[in-house]
């Protein structure tokens, strides 16, 4: 992975930068020791590592502002970091950067059930936002798989989704307001407890901007009352095309399940060996979950089962109890772990139009043979967000490169059939160089022009999102 060379000027003044940071932060919030900065050398994309110049752990918006002001004055790149769970290398440091971790900022600032929002510091984890409101039977809807660990800051940066976004939407649809600190250290309030923007929708622009436009320190999030209950049905087919048709028919029927998950045979076999959830050995498995009262769930499942039956399933298992529901979900939730038992894997995140599912799955199968690497597919079928897991051996020379080449081909295919490179993980460094397959030069130029407005020196989260070649002129001009 190409990264821009670190600035010799910045590297040379490390001591001065640390001294200045210590004037605005407590001593234990400034990390400059090489043994300790190593803890920040990568995120969940562990194939790429680079210890930063320093790491800081501010405890308030004002401290974040003070840090950014100093870094701006000293021309030091800053890499904002939530919990470091990015699968796309969104928080990968450069050797001349300061990691700005928001982990110490995890307070709940305001809870308002009448108006259905909660305001939190963004270092708070996704699941603990729900944790803060569930005593009143409310929840925060976006539920990325990493929700136990991932921070709201990262959710906002990547516009994270989850299994239940078919009904509830992704982060951007559940975000009401942010406190944003600009690279200059200015604190800007955008949105709030009210809905929608009075002027330009800057909130929508900031959500998903991968920490390149500012550092979000506080967020107002929409919370919802929990439904009375939820129950899944498991449906197995011996043909992926038929499974795809079933998904399409369910969606067309007017029922809105909260989740429609899909697993293919390699994934089913791996999870069975790992978790023993009792899945049938078939080509494609669907888990469809609906919500409501007992009667409502029964009525919806009855329709879904009727639709499923018209496609001749090999297995149809309606959950009748919380234990059975847990068992149906067990395999799906263990899928990544199960694949990880077999080998190292790379998890892709392209989205395709649902109608293209059969074609794309067939092509992935063919490519798997061409590249000689196994692949399992587990994904959110309702919205076409695929997660092909390519298995490789990190210890085998050349295997990672082969895996990356295979992954790139899959993502190009996603774009070719009308989809996109990433549905919920973000571009980061991982898909940076593929951006040219989805966007023309002018399309990237206008996005980079947005960064020019927020961060004219191009210091925030360097070398992410845009191909280095596309951003070169701007980065040089900014120096």
């Amino acid at each position: 992975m190409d990264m821009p060379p670190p600035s010799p000027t910045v590297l040379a003044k490390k001591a001065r930068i640390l001294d200045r940071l210590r004037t605005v932060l407590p001593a234990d919030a400034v990390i400059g020791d090489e043994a300790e900065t190593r803890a920040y050398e990568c995120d969940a994309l562990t194939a790429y590592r680079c210890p930063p110049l320093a790491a800081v752990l501010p405890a308030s918006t004002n401290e974040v502002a003070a840090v950014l002001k100093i870094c701006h004055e000293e021309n030091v790149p800053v890499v904002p970091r939530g919990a470091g769970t990015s699968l796309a290398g969104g928080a990968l440091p450069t050797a001349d950067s300061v990691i700005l971790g928001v982990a110490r900022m995890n307070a709940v600032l305001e809870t308002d059930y009448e108006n259905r929002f909660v305001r939190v510091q963004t270092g708070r984890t996704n699941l603990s936002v729900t944790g803060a409101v569930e005593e009143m039977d409310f929840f925060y809807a976006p539920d990325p798989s990493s929700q136990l660990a991932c921070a709201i800051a990262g959710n906002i940066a990547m516009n994270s989704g989850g299994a239940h976004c078919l009904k509830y939407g992704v982060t951007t649809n559940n975000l009401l307001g942010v406190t944003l600190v600009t690279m200059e250290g200015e604190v800007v309030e955008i949105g709030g407890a009210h809905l929608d923007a009075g002027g330009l929708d800057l909130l929508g622009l900031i959500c998903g901007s991968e920490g390149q436009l500012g550092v979000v320190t506080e967020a107002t999030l929409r919370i919802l009352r929990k439904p009375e209950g939820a129950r899944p049905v498991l449906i197995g087919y011996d043909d992926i095309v038929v499974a795809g048709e079933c998904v399409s028919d369910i969606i067309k029927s007017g029922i809105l399940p909260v989740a429609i998950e899909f697993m293919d045979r390699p994934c089913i076999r791996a999870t069975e060996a790992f978790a023993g959830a009792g899945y049938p050995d078939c080509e494609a498995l669907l888990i469809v979950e609906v919500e409501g009262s007992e009667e409502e769930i029964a009525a919806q499942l009855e329709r879904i089962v009727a639709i499923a039956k018209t496609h001749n399933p090999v297995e149809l298992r309606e959950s009748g109890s919380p234990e059975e529901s847990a068992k149906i979900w067990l395999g799906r939730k263990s899928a990544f772990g199960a694949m990880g038992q077999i080998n190292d894997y790379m998890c892709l995140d392209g989205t395709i139009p649902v109608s293209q599912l059969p074609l794309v799955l067939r092509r992935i199968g063919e490519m798997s043979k061409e590249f000689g690497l196994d692949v399992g597919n587990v994904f959110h079928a309702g919205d076409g967000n695929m997660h092909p897991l390519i298995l490789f051996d990190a210890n085998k020379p050349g295997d990672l490169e082969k895996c990356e080449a295979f992954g790139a081909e899959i993502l190009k295919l996603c774009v070719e059939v009308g989809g996109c490179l990433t549905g919920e993980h973000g571009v980061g460094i991982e898909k940076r160089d593929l951006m040219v397959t989805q966007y023309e030069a002018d399309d990237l130029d206008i996005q980079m022009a947005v960064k020019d407005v927020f961060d004219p020196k191009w210091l925030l989260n360097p070398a992410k999102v845009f191909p280095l070649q596309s951003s070169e002129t701007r980065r040089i001009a900014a120096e």
Partner: protein
Amino acid sequence: MMRPGSEAELADAVAGATGPLRVIGGGTRDIGAPVDGDVLSAAGLSGISLYEPGALTLVAAAGTPLADIEAALASEGQRLAFEPMDHRGLLGTTGVPTIGGVVAANVSGPRRIQAGACRDSALGVRFVDGRGRVLKNGGRVMKNVTGYDLVKLLAGSWGTLGVLSEVSLKVQAIPETEATLVAQGLSAQDGVAALSAALGSPFDVTGAAWLSDTGEARVRIEGLAASVAYRLKQMGAEICAGWDVYEGVASAALWQEVRDVTPLSGQAGTVWRVSVKPTDAPALLNALGDPQAICDWGGGLVWLLMPEGGDGGAAAVRGAVARLGGHATLVRGSAETRRAVSVFQPEEAGVARITAGLRAQFDPRGILNPGLMG
């Protein structure tokens, strides 16, 4: 008036412009500071280019009449989830509303509280920027975080950052049935409290409004018939005890009235659209001397009828909003009033600097609806 028939012609028209352009779709949403300039209409770009009911997605040229889109969707039992308002009644305009106009103005109706705003259903855009470049962002899939989200930025930018040429939207199945619970004679305070309780219930309310003239609170439920019946029973037993029930077309009529702000149409005065924290709505009305109002979105969206004279209520409305938080837009007012006061909410310095910076990038010559948003 320029009325290009293709995206390329649209790009040429913008690139070749030598002065300000007044960008319009169907011309039914005459909102904002009056713009002097050559009219550039996107209405010539028309047609649905892709509609996949099984994927809940539709792509159409920006000038496609909204009615065409709604008819195509209805033939498959689907609709736009965000329930866009028809402004013609309130503004006394004529013309054909277009899908581009809906997106450019981020027009969202009562279902916004449950299904999201227009911007939440917008999956992708193609547009021509102020330099005359054809640009695209987003796509036609429901989950997409590839690069910055300019779709949201363009939605609600009123043609000031670019002229939309194509939009791609997420659509929704029309539920089997709908019903509305109605109570009369509630004060603003009691009405909004009831709406809050309904929205805080597990019964998936898709509309919650209070109308000042009758003190009427309305709560809508949609879904499968058996499910709607169940939820009506539950809500009737708790939060909405004793409320009347309207079903089917009678229910739909109540929401078309809220959506189009019908009670304020045809009445003299300025009309303001205020977004506040829902429980602040009663305080807002109280501060303004209880003008006629419709509180949609559980109280979060307040439509106000204010006297036309003087500043059209600008100082009073903006003062109250400044104290409570939120934003106010003068949706209906004479051209003089719209020239004299800021139609859109004035921005704090930090936000204003970012906005100005973005405008300079998207429209460096300042020719796209200049000044419309202030």
